[in-house]
C-alpha cells in the first residue's frame, strides 16, 4: 500500500499563493477559510536580508494529534496515510484545532459566499455536482484532504496517483515554480523519496512526535 505525502521546496517557492488559490477553488473552501496558506517572514537586516515563504497545509501526520483529540472519532487516517474528516460525524467541538500544532484545521462558523449576499453559480452547484468531500456545512471543521478525491479517482481508474495532472493534488501541478512534489513516501524510487534523501528534507515541529508526511527542503 502506498503512503502519500508532499515535498515542498522552500528554496523555489516564490510566494505567489498559486497553491492557495488552487486548493481553495478545487475544494470549494469558503471565503475566509483555508486548507492551504503561505506564511511569509523576513530574516536578517538590510542589506543582508532574506524573505522566506512557507506554504502550510495539513501535514497528514503519521501520528495525528487531531485524530486522537476528536471525541467523535470523526477524524481518521485512510489506508494511504491520508488524514480525513468524516463531516457527518463532526460535531464542531474543535478539539482537533487545539491539538494541531500546525494550525491548519479550520472551523466553519457560518456559511459564507464569496460575494456578500450573492451566490455565484459556482456556489449554487447542486449537491450531486459536488464531490462528498466538498459538501460542507456550518458547524463542522475542515482541512486539506491531499485532494483525496483526485487520488481516489486515479485509483479507481487504475492510474498511479501523481502520474498526471488530474490525479495529483491540485496544489502541486499548478505551482509556477515547480516547488511542490507529490508521491509515495514508501516507494524509495519515487521523486518525493529521492528528494527527501538528497536534500535531507525536514518535517515541521518534529519534536511533537507527529511524524508529518509533508517534508520541506530548506
Amino acid at each position: 500500500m502506498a503512503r502519500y505525502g508532499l515535498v515542498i521546496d522552500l528554496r523555489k517557492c516564490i510566494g505567489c499563493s498559486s497553491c492557495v488559490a488552487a486548493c481553495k477553488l478545487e475544494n470549494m473552501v469558503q471565503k475566509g477559510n483555508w486548507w492551504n496558506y503561505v506564511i511569509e517572514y523576513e530574516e536578517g537586516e538590510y542589506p543582508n536580508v532574506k524573505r522566506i515563504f512557507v506554504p502550510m497545509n495539513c501535514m497528514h501526520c503519521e501520528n495525528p494529534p487531531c485524530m486522537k483529540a476528536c471525541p467523535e472519532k470523526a477524524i481518521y487516517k485512510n489506508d494511504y496515510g491520508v488524514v480525513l474528516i468524516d463531516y457527518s460525524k463532526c460535531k464542531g467541538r474543535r478539539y482537533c484545532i487545539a491539538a494541531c500544532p500546525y494550525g491548519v484545521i479550520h472551523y466553519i462558523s457560518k456559511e459564507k459566499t464569496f460575494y456578500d449576499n450573492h451566490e455565484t453559480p459556482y456556489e449554487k452547484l447542486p449537491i450531486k455536482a459536488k464531490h462528498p468531500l466538498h459538501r460542507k456545512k456550518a458547524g463542522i471543521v475542515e482541512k486539506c484532504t491531499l485532494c483525496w478525491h483526485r487520488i481516489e479517482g486515479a485509483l479507481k481508474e487504475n492510474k498511479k496517483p501523481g502520474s498526471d495532472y488530474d490525479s495529483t493534488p491540485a496544489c502541486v501541478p499548478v505551482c509556477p515554480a515547480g516547488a511542490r512534489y507529490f508521491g509515495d513516501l514508501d516507494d524509495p524510487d519515487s521523486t518525493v523519496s529521492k528528494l527527501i534523501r538528497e536534500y535531507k528534507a525536514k518535517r515541521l515541529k518534529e519534536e511533537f512526535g507527529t511524524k508529518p508526511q509533508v517534508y520541506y527542503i530548506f
Partner: protein
Amino acid sequence: MNCITRREFLKRSIFLMSLSFLSNKLFSFEKEMEKELSTEIPYSPEEDVLIPSTCAMCVNFCGIRVRRVDGVIRAIYGNPESPYNKGHLCPKGQAGIFHTYNPYRIKAPLKRTNPKKGINEDPLWKEITWEEAFEEIVSKLKEVKEKDPRGLSFHWSHGKYLLGDQYTKAFCKAFGTPNGIHRTTVCEAARHVADEITWGYHGILPDLDYTKYFINMGANFAEAEQWARWLDRTLMRRIYDEKDLKMVVVEPRLSNSAAKANEWVPIRPGKDVLFLLAMAKELIKNNFIDREFLINYTNAPFLVGGDQKVLKDEKGNPLVWDEIKNKALPYDEAEKISLDKEVIIDGKKYKTSFNLFKDYVLSLREKEIEEETGIPYETIKKIALEFGKNARIGEFIEIEGQKLRYRPVAIYTFRGMIANENGAQAWRLGLILNMLVGSINAVGGLLIHKADPEHKNRKPSKCEYPPSRVDLQESVFFPYATHNVAQQCAYTYQNPEKYGLPYKPQMAIFYATNRILSTSEIEKQFEGYKNLYSVNINIVLDETSQFADIVLPDKTYLEDFHFSPTRWTPDSEHKAIRQEIVNAYNIPYGIFEILWELAKRLGILDKYIEELNKEWKLKEKKFEVGKDYTSKEATAIIWEDTTGKPFEYALKHGLLAKTLDVKKRYLEDLSKFEGKGKPKINFYAEQLVFTKEKVFEIMDKNENVKKVFMEWFEEDENNIKKILEIKFSPLPLKEHSFPTPHKKRDSKEYPFYLITYKRMYRNQTDAHALNPVLNEVAKDSSSNFVLINSKIAKKMGIKDGDEVYVESKIGKVKGKAKLTEGIRPDTVAISYHYGRFAKSFPEYAKKGVLPNFIIEYHPDIISGEDSFNDTKVKIYKA
C-alpha cells in the same frame, strides 16, 4: 457512515414542513435536505468536462483547461499541453471563475443621465436597450466622421489581448482615424523602443536553459511580468535543481524575485545606467570583450567624427579602419577591421564607436559611481568580473550537430530599469553590455526575436509636425514612440493647440482599458477626458467608464471565442484560441459583434472586412464581403488560415505548439547582421543624432514645441537644447541616471525616492479588485502598503500599520506603512493598482493606496514611456 436513513429524513421533513409556515426563515429547506443526505448522493453531475482555452487574466496567455460541471465553471486548471506554462497557473488565472461570475459586471447598455463628469460625479446610469445604444453611438460616430474622422480616438489596453488589436486597428482604418491607442508606455515600451533602435524589433528573452550568470535589473517575474510563467519555473529549476545558474537581482526593493536570487544588489532608484556603465568600465579594463562579435555583427568599429556622425564614403557606406591598409575603408572592403581606434583623417579626429564608448566609461570616477548608485564599487567590479568570466568569450558549444557561439551570460530587464524618463537609453545600455561580451543570440545569452534591420526605428525619425495622432507618437515630441503614448492623450485632448494638433478630438471609444487610472498624475487625466463624448466597452464600471456617456457590456474571456495571442520561449512557439465556456449574464453581444454591428450601421463594413484581412494577414481563408460572422466563425477563419489545421483541432486542444530548432533559436535572426554585405546591430545609435537635428529645427520654428519640452524637463530656454543633446545621445551617458525630479527636487525637502511595482493579484485587468478569491489569497492581495525601511521608520516614529502621508511636489496620498528590511533606507515603494475609487465599486475593492496621483510626469522623449520610478517624496505620519 452515521447518517440518517431516507425514511427518517422524510419523517423529519414532514415535521419541519409542518412548522414551516411559522417561520419565513424556511429559506433553503431543500438545501438542508440535500445536506443531510449529502453523503448518500454520489457525485453524479450531468456534465463534467474539460475545455481547453487560453487565459486572459494577464498577458502571459497561459494554456488553461476550464472544468465545466453542469453548465457551471467549476475550476480552471493549467493546460499541460501548453509549451509555455506546461500546466502551471498563477492564482489570477485560477480565479478567472470569479472574473466571470462577478455580480458587479455590466449586464446591459447604460446611458449617463448626469451631464456633469468628474471623479466625484455619479454618472447616474440608466439602462437602455442595445438598439438604443447602437443608434446613439452610430449617430455620434457619423457626426464625427462627417466633420473629421480623426476626431475619434479608440483606446484599448487589455482589449488588444482579448479580441486582438487587429480588429480594433482595422476598425480605425475603416473609419479613417489614425488614433488607435494601446497602453505599453505605462509598462515596458521604452525597452521595446531601445530594442527597435538597436536591432530592429522588440522582444528579448534570456536563453536560460544554458545561462550561467544572469543579471536581472528589476524584472519581477515572481510577482508580475510578461513571460513570468516561463521565467519562474525555468529560473527556479536552473538555480536550485540544477545549481548551474547564478542570478543577481539589481533593484531597490527586495521583491519576491530578488528574494529568490543568489545575490540582491539594492541599487538607488534610477541609477541603473551608472551601475551598467561601471560594469562596462570593468569589462573593458579587464579585457572581457568579444572583439569578433563586435566587429562581425555590430557597428562598434564604425568611425565616428566630432559631429557624432559616422564617417561615410560618397556612396554612403560607413567606413572602418583597415589595419592592414592603414586607411579608412567601407566595412565590406576592409580586410582587418580595427575595433578600438582613434585616427586623424584629413585633419579631423575620428574614433571607432567602441573607442568612444571605452574612453567615456574609463573616464567615469569610481567614487561618484559608488556615491550615486549606493553600491560599493567593489561589488560592481566583482559582478562585472563574474559576468565577464562566465561569458567564456571565444568558446563554442555543439548542440544538435551545430557548432554555436557559447556566451552563457545575460543582462535582462522588464519594467524595473526602464519605466522612467530615460528608459530607452537605459535599456540601450543593457543591450550594449550584452554586445560587449557577445552574448546576443549566443547559447546561454540574450535572444533577440524577429530582427528587422530595416525597421523604421533604426533610421532617423520622421519627426512629424504637426502631429497626426493625439498621443503624438512618432512626432517631434516622441520621435521613436512606436508603441503609442497612452498617457499623453489626456493632455492633448485638453489643449490640442499646445501640441499643434491640426484637428479637434471629438469622441473616444474605450475598450477594456482603464486608461485614466493607470498613468502618472491622474488628476490631469480626468481633466483631459472630461469634455469628450465617450463610449466605454468593458465588463465592470471602472474609473474611466465613470467619464463615459454610453457604456456597453462585454463578454469575458471565458464567454467568447478569440484567436488568442501567445508567448514564445527559446524553444517553442504556439497558436491558441479561447472558447465560449459559459455566458453568465446572457449578454447577447461580445466585442466582436459590437464592432461588426457598428461598422455595418456606419456603412463601412466592406472596408472593415478588407482591413481585417490585411491586419490578420489572411491568405487562404478570409473574411468575405456580404457575409456576417459570429466570433466563433471569425476565430475559425483566423485559426485555419494561420495554422492550416481544421478548427476542430483547436476546439479539442486549444492550441498548436511547435518546437524551435537551434537554427531558429540562435542563428536565423543574427545572420541578418553577420559579416560583410549586411547591416549591423546598433552599438552606436547614429540615427538619434539626425533625429535630434530635426527636433531642433522644428523646435526653433515652433515656440510651442520648445515650451512643451521646457515644461517636461523643467528647463529654461537656454538649457533645453543641452538637455535634448543628452536625451538623444547616440551612446548612453551617466546623465541618463538623473531624471528631472532627481535634479530639481530639494533632497532635504523630498528625501525619499518613490518606486512603484506590480502585484499579480491586481495588474493588467481592472476588474481584479472585485475578485473575492484574489482578494484573499495573499496577505497584501486585498490592500497594498507603503513599504518603508524599518530602521528609517523607527527613527521617524513610524510603526508598522501606521497611516502615513507620502507627498511629492504634485500632491499627497495616505497609506498604511509596512516596515521591512527589504528596501533601501532612502526609498519607499508602493504597488500601483490599489486604492481604487470607482463609484460603482464596493468598499472592499477600494482598499489601499494609489501612488499614481503623486507620480510626476516627465516622459521619455525617445519612447514615450511614462515616468513611474522617478518621483521624489517626503513621508510623515498622518
